[in-house]
């Protein structure tokens, strides 16, 4: 494909084709422009996250209380280790990608094959890790109560440690059956019911005098406010809804927007990783059957490499904004 290219910018041939403005081939230049526009899309999302966070700066969830899981370590609070691992996996797949590009420059087909393969594996592990992270986020750990005013109440013991609803909620002799399509008179159903009703949580709270309520408000010490027992009982009397885990409407971690942004931004990034893996697989097979060997240029590998590094670049920012700050 490079055979027809002339970079000499002779006056009479300026519009005749074959020119390479900015010294990059057409495909590479367009990949850069796509990356610029995609970078602006992502920064739009992240800036919107910043907007909402500044708007609710006093009540925003604390990230190191939300993301505390690590595989095979149940009940151990391990903030950030897992995302740090994911970050390493993605950076490493970026390294193998750039090694593939480097091997392509030297026309070493076998090396390109190996490094492309490692890149694809790294991408798949990353997407899988993100799915696991979503699973934990959606499932939740402690549960919470939403009040009529829309604020969220969480439960702690005397030492300020979180207490799950399951540990204290009473069992009342009440039957509340989930309305499903098959039981409805018309096309009626309802979202799945929480494991405990508001009344059960209230009764359980009354029976456990050592429990206190934690509100969303962040104190001067940058911790969540813990109410006294009397205030707790007062706030709990306004309970309206039991929240378990997270969905797009409400989540047990705090501000409703927090889960929305988490799902949207990490989801959009995960979609980029997924499409990057698909494109990498296509190029991988092209390398295998020798397409670029015949072209005498591995520039295609370089172009998908650009996209793959961009996905890594976005993750660096998502990591900072969601998990560190």
């Amino acid at each position, binding site marked *: 494909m490079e055979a027809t290219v002339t970079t000499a910018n002779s006056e009479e041939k300026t519009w005749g084709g074959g020119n390479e403005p900015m010294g*990059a081939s057409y495909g590479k230049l367009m990949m850069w422009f796509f*990356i610029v526009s995609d970078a*602006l899309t992502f*920064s739009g999302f992240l800036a919107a996250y910043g907007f909402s966070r*500044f708007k609710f700066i006093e009540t925003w969830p604390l990230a190191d209380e939300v993301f505390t899981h690590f595989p095979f370590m149940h009940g151990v609070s391990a903030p950030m280790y897992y995302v740090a691992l994911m970050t390493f996996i993605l950076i490493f797949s*970026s390294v193998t990608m750039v090694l593939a590009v480097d091997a392509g420059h030297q026309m070493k087909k076998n090396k390109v094959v190996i490094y492309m393969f490692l890149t694809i594996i790294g991408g798949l592990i990353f997407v899988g890790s993100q799915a696991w992270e979503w699973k934990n986020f959606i499932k939740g750990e402690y549960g919470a109560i939403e009040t009529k005013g829309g604020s969220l109440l969480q439960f702690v013991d005397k030492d300020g440690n979180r207490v799950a609803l399951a540990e204290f909620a009473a069992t009342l002799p009440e039957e509340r059956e989930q309305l499903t399509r098959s039981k409805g008179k018309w096309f009626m159903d309802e979202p799945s019911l929480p494991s405990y009703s508001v009344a059960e949580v209230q009764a359980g709270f009354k029976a456990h005098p050592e429990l206190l309520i934690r509100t969303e408000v962040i104190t001067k010490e940058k911790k969540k406010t813990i109410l006294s027992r009397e205030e707790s009982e007062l706030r709990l009397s306004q309970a309206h809804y039991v929240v378990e885990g997270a969905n797009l409407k409400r989540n047990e971690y705090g501000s409703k927007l927090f889960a929305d942004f988490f799902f949207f931004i990490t989801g959009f990034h995960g979609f980029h990783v997924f499409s990057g893996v698909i494109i990498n697989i296509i190029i991988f097979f092209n390398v295998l059957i020798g397409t670029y060997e015949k072209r005498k240029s591995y520039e295609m590998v370089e172009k998908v490499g650009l996209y793959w*590094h961009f996905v890594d*670049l976005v993750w660096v920012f998502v990591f900072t904004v969601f998990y560190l700050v």
Partner: protein
Amino acid sequence: MSHEHVSNIGRIWKVFGILSAVTIVEVYLGILKPDFLFMNDFLSMNLLNWIFYALTIFKAYYIVYAFMHMEGEKSSLRSAVVFPVIFLILYLLFILLTEGDYIYEVFKNSTIKWNF
């Protein structure tokens, strides 16, 4: 592909080392949260967060310039890609964060407590 095809595997591994080291520092700081950084604010954000953002941009520089091989491109391509992105993002952040803070003040100081 006008640039010469020298292998720079050494540089790739060096950059990988830098990126890993910076990530480890970030995670370490994020878990420890030293009080003198976490409790002191500068421009309504604590010093720890400023450090995180500085390190993130440091990492972004290495990804773009080494891995995406921006350092080997012509300066016209470099400028065409880097400057619009930096300018537009700073502009957007300035507008949205100022506005977000303003709405926070409205919720805090006026009678509107919660409308969406």
